[in-house]
């Protein structure tokens, strides 16, 4: 009897689960890394005033990739001075000429796409299939899209004339290093602003590789400047009096600190902060598609995604079915070497982030949720975490309220549409949400009632340069992408 049950259970699983092992399929393109990366100020690579460098490691094996310049306040001053000088010409250049530089950047990035994808995967730990098929092509697409806006400023705000703001300070996170850079640079430059940008401490390499492209594109010196380092340099970039505007993507905690830091100024701000998205599955949803969407929603980029579908709300009548299919599905996710083309989940970005994930997962167990982890072998070196589900999660659990930023899904159930809306909106965040149902009118009702800036219906984690992205409530303000995103980089006259 017991044997019979086991066979039935095995049959319901995906048959290719553990029948054979995959051969390694490493991506071998040369990332063309330098041993040492300097700051990029005034169109030149320059040594930091301090003479200090820090190591950037590969989170997949903890080996050093390169030394990165450690910027200080004096370097930030130089970067702002260079940007401010460059603005005189850049801000008044005819839009059609400005646009050509952006088109060039897009094309040059496409030329070197594979090299950049490998560099991104080495530096950040994300699977090569994602950096190759998503991060790099999408970054190029952002430059291409915004390039075409540069000579169309009169169409940005109906009834008003728009002008560039000046120098913009930008700080970006480590989860999509090159893509976030493109999201920030492209609209700022298209609207005629100059930029001082700080990449995340653990993922500076592709920004500095992009600086090579900016040189090849002959972008005028000082239009874009990169300063590298940790949080205090980020604060210096955000707080610099030379910034007409600042844009930040990162945690809600740091975003609030920046808002306080700038409280006494007139600085314009864009904040793209954390999230705790509800992914809502109704009983009439196409269940197999929904399961794929849930997996994509939470395990894409190891869950290091501000808009990740980290709270699954599933209708009670199909909860057992969905959870069982999910468990089967995550058993066959491949965790390991990010450079392997078959890898689904790569390395956690840093030791620090790994310990954050572990701490929150431990709180989930302690608070009484039931944990399921896919049985998978993790590499001995490097930072890894297995795909993890929690069932029996309540709304008060920390794992249902706080952003984990890892491959951890908290599952809650609901009975009625109203309950789903109530639970989905019961969060301080409001970045994104997902809805799975076959009923069109229900999709539109959910989309109207969910307090989130992006709603994915019968899909998840889709992005496009023409599609505005940004949050409600404590997920921040301002939009990136589309015509709407341009308004955050212009003044109205």
């Amino acid at each position, binding site marked *: 009897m017991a044997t019979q049950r086991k066979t039935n259970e095995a049959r319901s699983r995906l048959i290719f689960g553990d029948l054979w092992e995959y051969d390694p399929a490493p991506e071998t393109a040369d990332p063309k890394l330098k041993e040492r990366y300097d700051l990029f100020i005034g169109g030149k690579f320059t040594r930091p005033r301090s003479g200090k460098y820090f190591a950037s490691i590969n989170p997949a094996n903890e080996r050093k990739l390169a030394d990165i310049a450690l910027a200080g306040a004096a370097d930030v001053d130089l970067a702002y001075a260079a940007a401010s000088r460059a603005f005189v010409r850049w801000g008044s250049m005819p839009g059609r000429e400005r646009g050509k530089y952006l088109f060039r950047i897009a094309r040059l990035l496409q030329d070197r796409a594979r090299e950049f994808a490998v560099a991104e995967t080495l530096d950040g730990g994300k699977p090569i299939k994602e950096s190759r098929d998503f991060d790099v092509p999408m970054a190029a*697409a952002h430059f291409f899209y915004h390039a075409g806006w540069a000579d169309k400023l009169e169409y940005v705000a109906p009834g008003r004339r728009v002008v560039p703001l000046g120098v913009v300070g930008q700080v970006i996170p480590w989860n999509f290093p090159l893509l976030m850079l493109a999201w920030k640079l492209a609209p700022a430059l298209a609207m005629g602003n100059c930029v001082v940008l700080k990449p995340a401490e653990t993922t500076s390499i592709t920004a500095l590789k992009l600086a090579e492209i900016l040189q090849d594109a002959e972008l005028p010196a000082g239009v874009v400047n990169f300063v590298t380092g940790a949080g205090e340099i980020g604060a210096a970039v955000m707080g610099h009096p030379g910034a007409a505007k600042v844009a930040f993507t990162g945690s809600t905690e740091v975003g609030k600190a920046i808002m306080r830091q700038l*409280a006494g100024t007139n600085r314009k701000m864009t*904040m793209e902060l954390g999230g705790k998205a509800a992914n809502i599955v109704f009983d009439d949803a196409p269940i197999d598609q929904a399961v794929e969407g849930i997996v994509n929603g939470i395990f894409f980029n190891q869950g290091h995604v501000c808009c990740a579908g980290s709270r699954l709300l599933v209708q009670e009548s199909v909860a057992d079915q969905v959870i069982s299919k999910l468990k089967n599905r995550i058993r066959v996710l491949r965790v390991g070497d990010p450079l392997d083309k078959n890898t689904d989940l790569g390395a956690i970005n840093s030791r620090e982030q790994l310990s954050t994930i572990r701490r929150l997962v431990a709180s989930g167990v302690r608070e009484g949720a039931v944990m399921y982890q896919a049985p998978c072998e993790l590499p001995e070196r490097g930072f890894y975490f297995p795909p993890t589900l929690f069932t029996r999660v309540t709304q008060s659990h920390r794992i249902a309220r706080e952003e984990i930023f890892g491959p951890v899904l908290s599952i809650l159930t609901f009975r009625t549409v109203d309950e789903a809306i109530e639970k989905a909106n019961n969060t301080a965040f409001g970045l994104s949400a997902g809805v799975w149902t076959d009923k069109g009118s229900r999709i539109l009702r959910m989309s109207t009632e969910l307090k989130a800036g992006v*709603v994915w219906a019968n899909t998840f984690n889709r992005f496009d340069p023409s599609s505005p992205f940004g949050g409600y409530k404590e997920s921040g303000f301002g939009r990136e992408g589309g015509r709407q995103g341009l308004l955050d980089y212009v003044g109205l006259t």
Partner: protein
Amino acid sequence: MSRIPVTKTPKVYIAGAFVRSESARTFKVSDASGAFFANMPQCTRKDLRNAVEAAAKAGPGWARRTPYNRAQILYRLAEMLEARSGELVESLVRFGARRADAEKGMTVGVDRLIHYAGWSDKYAQLLGSVNPVASPHFNFTVPEPMGVVGVIAPDSPPLLGLLSMIAPVIASGNTVVALASEKVPYPAILLGEMLATSDLPGGVVNLLTGFRKEMVPTFATHAHIRAIFAAADADERKALRLGAAASVKRVRFAEPVGKAWFSDSAQGLDLIRDFVELKTTWHPIGS
């Protein structure tokens, strides 16, 4: 003996009702000649709490009204103001406004309400979009109200400033808790009486009177106020921004000063845009 006039007890308009301050405090208001006029409710954070609760309750219903309906209600409010403009002008003059300015302020205020009435069913087409994404998805962006918005009105012009700040905020379906001018609060009391007869559902606009010094920090930190629209000095701006950081409130400061409120540049689509969220929805295009 000549008849003794019946004087009015000023009450603030919260949740569609006229109430005294929850803390039962008042402050004395004199007219421009220095003569005693009335005891004005000195609203405190308890009144703000009640007003925010009322605004939050009224919010979903107001946001669900059709844009056409919101437009007609704003137009109806303009009708109420036009009909009682004499009374409003007298109240402004009594508290020191030049008659010409008071009259001009009233006509501009009524016209401005009509301006925003007309926007109610148009701004979505200008601020929203269908987005040409590079994948088989239908993708569209629509503006939605933020929720409860705190308005802090200028002292000059007290009524036109208040109207100019409330109208763009409610046109898109937000609800408002407003602090009236501290120096000239009485026109806001009259405005409350007009709101009550304008078909605007109770709780959509709530008007408080009181001291800026007490109320500004409370507006800044109330977590259920999603955005602030304030005519504020440098210190108040900093306090509002600091408080706003705790719950990532959107903060917008009113730009006009003095006579600039009379100009057409003190109104328009940009002020509506500052108090909407943009929501983007994706759906696959399939068989």
